[in-house]
């Protein structure tokens, strides 16, 4: 089940470009937010990598896509493989900066909008906004709290564990997350020098301190920590050999052969995608292992209970879905009730082999939106 951490992460990620007002009101902000998002997962880039053609995706997203088909999902350039992926460090820096200033800009926009409302026919305008909210589907409580409620759940992280703030995405200690949000995300997470990891970060990986304290497997991994794991051809491996591969990384060796292979494949993807991030943004090995476990649980739930067959599953998903929508709702600045679409409207810029969706059609869909807006404004 989803723990608090997960739900918070989720809420943090329900942000999209439509959080910003349309182009005519705040030129470029939506486009900027959209440009910093991966077109596969629609989130801000996480470990961005570039293909030969120049298109950019999250490392894990494109690895998953390449496992299905060896082509660029955006332009369909063929014969693309994981070996062609190149880290896009500049994009990563841009995303990091954008994540830091995004909540600030949203707050400023909100303040400006409130000021406008207060100074000109307040009641009328507010009513209009509320009406628009009503129309939104699956929006059960638009007048929810300013911040998404922090749900108490079993399996909560340790009070000192850093979790992603659902509002500003900053890493904040779990025990102060609620105060942090109540203060409008102004409180800076204090640097934590208590853990070994923090010292190592500070002193760099080459530091003696960091090296001395590590031993065994952990050291072997850290010394070659920029080397991606090679892909294996499992056909030639016995179960025992696959288990050994898993053991090497402290991963579970239970389950059928098929599960062992899937687990190892996923591990290689997660591990290598993590290496495509800047060192300071990389996750720890235990945290990667947790990601793998989480993924495996999801896979099991999916295969056990196919969507179309089970009512209980649907209801469970629905409530999670409602939570998401609800969580996403209060964050939208009142001024940002939009007629334009965000990045999800963007069909691929170029999909040559497809007979029905032409690049021009896809582009038109976006451009028309913007013009439409301007016309309505004028």
């Amino acid at each position: 089940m989803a723990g608090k951490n997960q739900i918070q992460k989720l809420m943090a990620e329900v942000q999209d470009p439509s959080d910003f007002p349309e182009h005519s009101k705040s030129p470029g902000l939506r486009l900027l937010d959209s440009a910093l998002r991966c077109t596969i997962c629609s989130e801000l880039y996480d470990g961005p990598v570039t293909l030969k053609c120049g298109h950019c995706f999250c490392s894990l997203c494109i690895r998953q896509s390449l496992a299905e088909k060896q082509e660029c999902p955006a332009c369909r350039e063929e014969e693309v493989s994981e070996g062609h992926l190149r880290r896009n460090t500049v994009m990563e820096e841009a995303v990091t900066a954008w994540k830091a200033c995004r909540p600030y800009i949203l707050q400023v926009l909100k303040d400006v909008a409130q000021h406008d409302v207060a100074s000109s026919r307040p009641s009328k305008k507010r009513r209009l906004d509320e009406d628009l909210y009503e129309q939104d589907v699956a929006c059960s409580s638009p007048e929810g709290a300013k911040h998404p409620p922090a749900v108490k759940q079993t399996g909560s992280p340790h009070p000192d564990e850093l979790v992603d703030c659902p509002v500003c995405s900053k890493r904040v200690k779990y025990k102060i997350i609620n105060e942090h949000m109540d203060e409008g995300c102004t409180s800076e997470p204090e640097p934590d020098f208590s853990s070994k990891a923090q010292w190592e970060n500070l002193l760099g990986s080459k530091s003696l301190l960091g090296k001395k304290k590590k031993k065994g497997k952990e050291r072997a991994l850290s010394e070659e920590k920029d080397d991606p794991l090679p892909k294996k051809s499992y056909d030639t491996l016995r179960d025992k050999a696959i288990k050994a591969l898993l053991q090497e990384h402290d991963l579970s060796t239970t389950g059928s052969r098929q599960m062992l292979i899937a687990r190892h494949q996923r591990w290689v993807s997660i591990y290598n995608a993590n290496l495509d991030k800047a060192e300071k943004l990389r996750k720890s090995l235990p945290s990667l292992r947790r990601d793998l476990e989480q993924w495996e649980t999801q896979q099991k739930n999916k295969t056990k209970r196919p969507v179309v067959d089970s009512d209980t599953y649907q209801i469970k998903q629905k409530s999670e879905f409602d939570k998401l929508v609800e969580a996403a709702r209060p964050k939208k600045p009142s001024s940002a009730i939009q007629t334009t679409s965000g990045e999800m409207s963007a069909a691929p810029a170029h999909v040559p082999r497809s007979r029905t969706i032409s690049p021009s059609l896809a582009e038109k869909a976006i451009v028309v939106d913007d013009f439409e807006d301007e016309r309505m404004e004028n």
Partner: protein
Amino acid sequence: MDARLRRVNKEIADCKNDKTSNISLELIDNSPFHLRGSFPGPEDTPYEGGHFEVDIVIPDAYPFQPVKMKFITKVYHPNVSSASGAICLDILKDAWSPVLTLKSTLISLQSLLCSPEPNDPQDAEVAKHYTTSKGSFDETARYWTQIYAGGPGKMEAKSSGGSKDEVAIAGLEKAHVDQFEALGFPRNKVIDVLRRLNYRGANVAQISEDRIVEELLKP
């Protein structure tokens, strides 16, 4: 929590926010992975004025596997099964890409209605009709739009209530059906055979009456 749900959630929100594309998405039951999409029939086509609904199932591996779509509304089109609503469209199969969205896929369906591909048909009989007598095909497609998709049409057709014109639905000439019915064959069998043989337009001259009777005599 799964990336698929997050993405689908955004896609639905995006469709709600977008008032210009005319594409809409709704939940069918309690699952965000089973949706109903709809769009207006494109202008200057026999589908103009109709409202077309599509059943959408989002697979576990979405967006790495294509979304499953089929028409709920009956459509007369070479690339849509006239019986099941199944759709033959490359992006729903091997030409899928994870950057495609529910909205862009529905827009693709809309443009599929503008430009049929009879050489890669889903419904062979409809495709034959399209290639041999375009005029008659358009008329039939328009009639289907009228009776199944709420499209505009003659008053008589609309007011006739339950009794739809089976001959027009099959895209046939009333005179042809009457002619063979007069020989003593049941009307629905005549319609069935003439439709299968594509007894329309220039094809009428190609098919002898004996051939039709022969078909009609088969059990």
